[in-house]
């Protein structure tokens, strides 16, 4: 079940990233981080790291211009492990907490990317801080919104609406 949920999340993230890229928005949320965070909260560290690996590879594939294959996979595996570790020790249910955690994950991933590129290429390629912050904020807001949406009892409401129509 978790695997199907992960596959669906990765597919939606890919489509969403491509769509947002086509719109040319200045600050887009990190959609690939959402299934990683979801896997960390539901399936534990192994699933979160596998989700991070797959999401990172997809992100490396669809990124324009083409990045190094494995760059985001590395950081997202790390983020998946960190998120799973945090989720194993605390209960994070509030949308704000989820949004804040994923926003922090975006910042952490940016730092990890800088360090990784510095190690690999021998030079530090710092991204614009404003861009990182706006990306983190967008990701946090989207994650919080999705958390709010996930807490709505959609099935009960649909059943109640159907009973009202029949009654």
């Amino acid at each position, binding site marked *: 079940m978790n695997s199907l949920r992960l596959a669906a999340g990765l597919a939606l993230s890919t489509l969403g990233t491509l769509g947002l890229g086509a719109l040319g928005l200045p600050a887009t949320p990190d959609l690939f981080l959402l299934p990683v965070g979801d896997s960390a909260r539901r399936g*534990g*560290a*192994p699933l979160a*790291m*596998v989700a*991070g*690996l797959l999401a*990172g590879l997809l992100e490396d594939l669809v990124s324009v211009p083409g990045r*190094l*294959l*494995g*760059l985001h*996979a*590395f950081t997202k*595996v*790390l983020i998946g*492990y960190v998120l*799973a570790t945090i989720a194993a020790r605390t209960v994070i249910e509030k949308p704000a907490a989820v949004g804040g955690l994923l926003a922090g994950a975006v910042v952490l991933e940016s730092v990890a990317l800088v360090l*990784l590129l510095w190690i*690999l*290429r*021998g*030079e530090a390629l710092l991204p614009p801080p404003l861009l990182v912050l706006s990306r983190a904020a967008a990701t946090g807001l989207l994650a919080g919104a999705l958390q709010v949406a996930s807490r709505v009892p959609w099935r009960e409401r649909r059943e109640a609406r159907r009973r009202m129509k029949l009654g």
Partner: protein
Amino acid sequence: MSTPPLTSRRPEILLAVLLSACLVALSLQVRRPTGESVGERWLQSILGPFVDLVAGVRTAGGDLAEWSSSRRALLSENRQLRSSAEALEAELLRLRGVERDRDRLLALFGAHAAPPAGTVAARLVAVEAAGPFRTALLDRGADDGLSPGGVVVAAEGLLGRVVAVGAGTARVQLLSDRVAAAGVLLARQGRAAVARGDGRGGATILYVPTIEAVEVNDPVVTSGTDGLYPTDLPVGRVLSVNRKADSLFWEIQVAMAVDPARAARVFVLPPVRTSDAPAGAAARR
């Protein structure tokens, strides 16, 4: 502090595996400003000793092949040198033989620096020593200018004279023959005498009075008084000196200067002519 079980360490192991795989993939793609990728540099660092080992083995193999080639070349050269040395040794032996022949000839010419005209070199091809008669056969004859009466000498001294001549051979009567005789001179005393062959390989000197002090090893040469032989040709040395009880003369045994069995090369001088008195002086030269 106890080690946590494997199940609880699995996430960390998986994390390490995934991160390592990503790093390896990245290192194979990323190129540093120097132009080489990190993976290549890591690979070079890891494979460096192996490459050095392979290079060392290759160098050693090359050296070994070179050594083997050099060894083969040296062995071949050694074989050639041995063969050459054997050939040179054979040549040396041949040259030594030639040198001995030359020395004999030089000795002959030394004794007779200017041999008389008509002197012929010859070989003793046979010596007949059966019974009291001592003769030898030469490989030269009348066709080579030999004639009866020719004086046969070797490097060491007088051998005999030619008594019969064929077209290609000549027979020599040796001085040790029972019926051969020659006028001789005891060189130390200046005493003339007659030497006669004893038929046993030597000669006996007759008619030397006992008042002459004759000693063993005294040299005996031809006197030229017989009209057969030139003067001063070595005949031999005194071997023994005896006296019979009622005799006024010594009985002197002479060891011949020339052993016919060992005189392979000889010279035949022209016969001495009685009317040609100075011929003896020419032969002495």
